[in-house]
């Protein structure tokens, strides 16, 4: 069917295309920025403002959103909307971080911004209770529940274990992919960060990934290749992840990081949970495959105090 071939074509073009763009830009602009809030507030409105400012400053430090989104683009913004939890419980991405990313995309002239996720709990609960549905719609994005008809079995180029898997069609048809993940502890993969967040574009029997989680995540990361990765560490889930529920497990780090190298970003995210980058299996695997650099320090990340 012609649509499947178009997918394969796009995937085969995207990989060298992105690498060359990243390669060129790496020479001139920073590839990673870490924004930290100096005076963290305690009230909800203050935290919302903090999240917005951190997100904006982090992306601006990379050269601004026009580096990643061009006029007329269709952008897929992928937050973590996986769990039926409220924003304070740090199971899903902070809605203000997501809203800011959407606003920036429109400022860069994006034609359409799509926001969705294939969640673990029921979508009609996770989307509104995480606050992301309301925030995304207010920012002008199309936030919708995934349509079962649009999961298509696709050939995953370069995959070692996920040779063919159901991927959501709108994701591969979009022009840009921005990964907006939250930092959380996870018993199997030690942490769930950007690469784990990509599972939300996959359908089918995803619960089988866990039998070889690192290989599966690296396969997925090599296929999707986000143009921009953000890590929401305003609140992190330090224990009993990825679901959490106990507010005592939520820690305020007051950081938002942005970067183009998804392996480096995950390597950095691990440190926020008190782990080493080498502790995260998918980071090691991704580095070994050349998907990125796990020695994020060597990328000279820009450190900002906001």
């Amino acid at each position, binding site marked *: 069917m012609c649509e499947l071939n178009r997918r394969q074509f796009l995937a085969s073009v995207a990989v060298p295309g992105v690498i060359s763009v990243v390669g060129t830009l790496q020479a001139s602009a920073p590839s990673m920025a870490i924004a930290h809030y100096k005076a963290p507030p305690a009230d909800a409105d203050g935290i919302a403002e903090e999240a917005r400012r951190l997100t904006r400053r982090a992306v601006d430090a990379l050269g601004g959103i026009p580096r990643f989104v061009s006029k007329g683009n269709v952008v897929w913004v992928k937050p973590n909307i996986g769990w039926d939890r409220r924003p304070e419980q740090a199971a899903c991405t902070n809605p203000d971080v997501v809203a800011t990313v959407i606003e920036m995309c429109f400022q860069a002239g994006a034609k359409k911004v799509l926001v969705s996720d294939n969640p673990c709990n*029921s979508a009609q609960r996770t989307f*509104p*209770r995480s606050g992301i549905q309301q925030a995304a719609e207010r920012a002008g994005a199309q936030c919708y529940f995934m349509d079962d*008809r649009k999961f298509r079995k696709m050939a995953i180029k370069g995959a070692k274990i996920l040779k063919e898997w159901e991927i959501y069609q709108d994701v591969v048809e979009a022009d840009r992919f921005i990964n907006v993940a939250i930092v959380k502890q996870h018993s199997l993969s030690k942490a769930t960060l950007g690469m784990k967040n990509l599972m939300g574009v996959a359908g089918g029997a995803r619960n089988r990934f866990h039998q070889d989680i690192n290989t599966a995540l690296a396969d997925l990361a090599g296929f999707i290749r986000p143009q921009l990765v953000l890590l929401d560490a305003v609140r992190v889930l330090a224990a009993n992840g990825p679901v959490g529920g106990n507010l005592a497990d939520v820690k305020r780090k007051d950081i938002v990081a942005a970067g183009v190298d998804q392996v480096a970003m995950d390597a950095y995210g691990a440190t926020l949970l008190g782990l080493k980058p080498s502790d995260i299996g998918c980071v090691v695997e991704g580095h070994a495959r050349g998907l990125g650099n796990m020695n994020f320090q060597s990328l000279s990340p820009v450190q900002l105090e906001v």
Partner: protein
Amino acid sequence: MAGKRRTSWVVWLRRAVQTAFLLLFFYLFLRTAYYPINRIGGPVTLFFQLDPLAMLTTWLASHAVAAGMLLSLVTLGVTVLGGRWFCGWICPFGALHNLFTSLRGGRLKARLEAGGYGRWQKAKYYVLAVFLTGALLGVNAVGWLDPFSFLFRSMSTAVYPALNNAVVSLFSWIYDANPGVGPVRVTVVSEPVYEFLRRHFLAVQQPHYFGNVLIGFLFGLVIAVNFYRPRFWCRYICPLGALLGVAGKNPLVRLNKDEEACNNCRLCLADCQGGGNPNTEQWKPAECFYCFNCKSDCPSQAISFGLGKRADPAAIRPVPAASFSGKGVVVK
């Protein structure tokens, strides 16, 4: 409709009210799945709170009743005063049976015979008696045959999932097959329609329920028997109807037949819903739904509804036609 008479405005009003309540039931059914902040989307259990049968059996069986269900005393009160208006105007299951009954064809003679009272209509009172006795001993199985339970349960486990599947299958087929001519594709129209349906009517996830085949089959059966007898469920089975029949067997609002005007054509039976025998002197208020079809159908305008009895039939003596000019004699 019998004859060439125009349908009475009361019948149109009744149909409108029935339709409104049926649509309200469907609307509340759909709202039961709307809950953005862990709060249910409105008074979705309204019909159950209006249901005196559920209130009565729950109270008998468990010696306590949820406060909201006391609303059903209003239904009882209205029925004691006025008769089984609930069955004729409000009950959504009744409206559904009414809808399918009206699809009956058949020759007039067959309809006249079917429209009259059948002695098996007593069965529902016996059914009610069994359930009430069981409730005295803590068994609240009346939910099997309570009309709202039956309708809601059938819809939620069987009918709605099946309809949802049918609609999704249709639009999925169109999406996959992508029919069209050149650049003009059907999906240009079908996808926006599908989005609209998804937003307002379809389930977020296709529901599946164990036990759906039996429940769906019984629902289909109950609807289908309307083609055997009009409003079969309402006449023969419904324990709520039986309860309202007991409560409403001596109503203030009564059917009055002008014996002089009546020529025994029996056309009033053609569309009689409840089987209350409006053509006889023995109109049965416990079976009448106050649908006003008889009043509308009567070519001699002999049937009217009003407070109290218009005439005591035993008091009417046949008088020579020449001795009065009016249509009937009013004897107080």
